[in-house]
C-alpha cells in the first residue's frame, strides 16, 4: 500500500547531540511537510518542500534544518536538540490542491 513511513518511531538523544529523523513516501506527492506536535496540541508546521523548493516557516528556529534528496525522501535535522525540542515529529505529504494531507505515524523524540 502507498504510504508515508517515518523512522525511527522513537528516538532518544542527548542534550546538544545532533539527530536526524527520516521520512519516505510511496505516494509520489510533490509536497512534503514536517510538523512538530507537543502534548496533544495542534501540529505546528516547521517547513515544507514543494518539489525541491524549500519553504521555511518564519518562526521555525535555525536549529531545525531539512533535506529532500529526491521525491521519496525527506529528512529533519536537529542540530543541537534542547529539552524544549522533545515532541512528536510528524511528516506529511500533499498532492493536488483539493487533496488532503497524508501523515506518517510520527517519531517521538526524547531529549535527555
Amino acid at each position, binding site marked *: 500500500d502507498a504510504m508515508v513511513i517515518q523512522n525511527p518511531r522513537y528516538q532518544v538523544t542527548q542534550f546538544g547531540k545532533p539527530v536526524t529523523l527520516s521520512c519516505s513516501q510511496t505516494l509520489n506527492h510533490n509536497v512534503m511537510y514536517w510538523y512538530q506536535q507537543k502534548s*496533544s496540541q495542534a501540529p505546528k508546521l516547521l517547513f*515544507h518542500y514543494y518539489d525541491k523548493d524549500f519553504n521555511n516557516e518564519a518562526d521555525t528556529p535555525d536549529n531545525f534544518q531539512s533535506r529532500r534528496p529526491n521525491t521519496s525522501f525527506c529528512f529533519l535535522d536537529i542540530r543541537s536538540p534542547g529539552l524544549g525540542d522533545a515532541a512528536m515529529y*510528524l511528516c*506529511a505529504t*500533499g498532492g493536488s490542491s483539493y487533496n*488532503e*494531507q497524508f*501523515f*506518517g505515524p510520527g517519531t517521538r523524540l526524547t531529549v535527555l
Partner: protein
Amino acid sequence: AQSVAQPEDQVNVAEGNPLTVKCTYSVSGNPYLFWYVQYPNRGLQFLLKYITGDNLVKGSYGFEAEFNKSQTSFHLKKPSALVSDSALYFCAVRDMENYGQNFVFGPGTRLSVLP
C-alpha cells in the same frame, strides 16, 4: 489569514449516543475543509473533506460532517458513538492564500466515549 476554531477542548458522550465535534473557520475565498483523527502515539488519519458540492459529507468509520456557509461551520458528527472513537480530533482548512500548500489546524478536541 485563515483560522480554525474548535470551541470545545473535550467532548464526552455515552456509547451509542450521537456525537458532535464542533469546528468554525475563517477564510478568504472558498473553504477547503478537513477532519483528521489522532490516536495516542500515532499520526493524523484523514476522516473526510469538503471541497464543493453537497453540504453533508460522508467519511470514514461512519463519520460525517455538515458544511454550513452562513455559520462558517463544519461540525463533525456520528449517529452512534463507539468507545473506539475516543481520540483527538482536528479540524483543518487549506490555506489557499499560500498557493494552497499549507494547512491551518484547529487546536483539537478530545473525544471520550464512555461505555
